């Protein structure tokens, strides 16, 4: 049941525009904003989740209190998975997958502290061993990009994973753009035995958890902090409950 806000409420809030349409019910809002319960399983598995759980355990205790000696260097870390539109091509003995990472809009309020890509440097697909690396995709001038520090072995996870710093690449090419930003990375693999190139059924084999992006961010001003006090879904919930309470009271 949805009611119009009471006259008293509108009079108390002169900046609130009068509404002619019903207020969206709380549950409907949550279904739009928050992940659905069935979404949990596909994402809450595998190396990306394992990486973030280890990061969490190093940075906070079991009650969520940030640790004094945390070395994370930022107040926020976002793990971004590649989108599903993967293009593939073969260049000599190299199998190349082009991965797109949607960085979203409205990042003006955040300072990019560091950006890294975490990827498998060894793959075993169809009994074939592959050595892999990642390069930022740059149109026309592939040698001009600067990827910051080189790759380093990732101590957090298994020995088949590597973390590469791409902060400079993102800062120089993407961060200050206002439109939707897409980070494009080439994930390149070569069979350790070159003769296996033709037999390798590589078109169907790449799963989405071979690489993920980590953005280490800080809020840059107080309004940003205010806007990000709670995840948007939680804010929606609290706002909804608050308006429900006021409607109950006015009834």
């Amino acid at each position, binding site marked *: 049941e949805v009611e119009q806000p009471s006259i008293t409420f509108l009079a108390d809030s002169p900046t609130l525009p009068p509404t002619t349409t019903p207020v969206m019910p709380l549950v409907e809002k949550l279904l739009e904003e928050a992940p659905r319960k069935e979404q949990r399983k596909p994402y809450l598995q595998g190396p990306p*989740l394992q990486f973030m759980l280890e990061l969490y355990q190093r940075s906070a205790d079991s009650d969520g209190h940030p640790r004094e000696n945390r070395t994370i260097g930022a107040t926020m870390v976002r793990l971004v998975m590649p989108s599903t539109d993967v293009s593939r091509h073969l260049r000599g003995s190299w199998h190349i997958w082009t991965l797109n990472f949607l960085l979203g809009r409205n990042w003006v309020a955040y300072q990019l502290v560091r950006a890294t890509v975490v990827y498998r440097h060894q793959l075993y697909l169809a009994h074939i061993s592959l050595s892999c690396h990642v390069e930022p995709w740059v149109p026309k001038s592939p040698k001009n990009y600067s990827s910051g520090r080189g790759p380093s072995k990732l101590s957090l996870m298994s020995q088949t994973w590597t973390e590469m710093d791409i902060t400079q690449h993102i800062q120089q090419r993407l961060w200050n753009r206002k439109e939707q930003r897409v980070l494009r990375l080439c994930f390149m693999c070569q069979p350790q035995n070159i003769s296996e190139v033709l037999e390798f059924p590589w078109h169907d084999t790449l799963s989405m958890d071979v690489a993920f992006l980590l953005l280490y961010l800080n809020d840059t001003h107080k309004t940003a902090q205010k806007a990000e006090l709670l995840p948007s879904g939680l804010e929606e919930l609290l706002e909804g409950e608050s308006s429900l309470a006021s409607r109950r009271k006015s009834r």
Partner: protein
Amino acid sequence: QIHSVEPEVTAPSWEHDESEKNQCSLHPYTVSFRQLGWDHWIIAPHHYTPNYCKGTCPRVLHYSLNSPNHAIIQNLVNELVNQSIPQPSCVPYKYVPMSILLMEANGSILYKEHEGMVAQSCTCR
């Protein structure tokens, strides 16, 4: 002005103890994210201890309550001038942050230190 605080100073000891027991203070409280219905997207921690402030604000706001001048004056206004002006309320004074690991609707996983999540002390204001 002294006259207005005199009754509290000279109150019987049992009455004094009772008012101290109900005085504005921090109370521990823990809730699970499951109880809040947010456990399908908050990965860690499983429990949240926001705590809360409860109790009456004394007519004499002593130093340890960290009340601003405004609260002291409002107390006096309530006491001496206009009782429709409410006494100060018992509310959180200091907060500490809390780190949350959650899954976003687009599949990203987010670690964030959220400010102001856990009440650490209380004040009258």
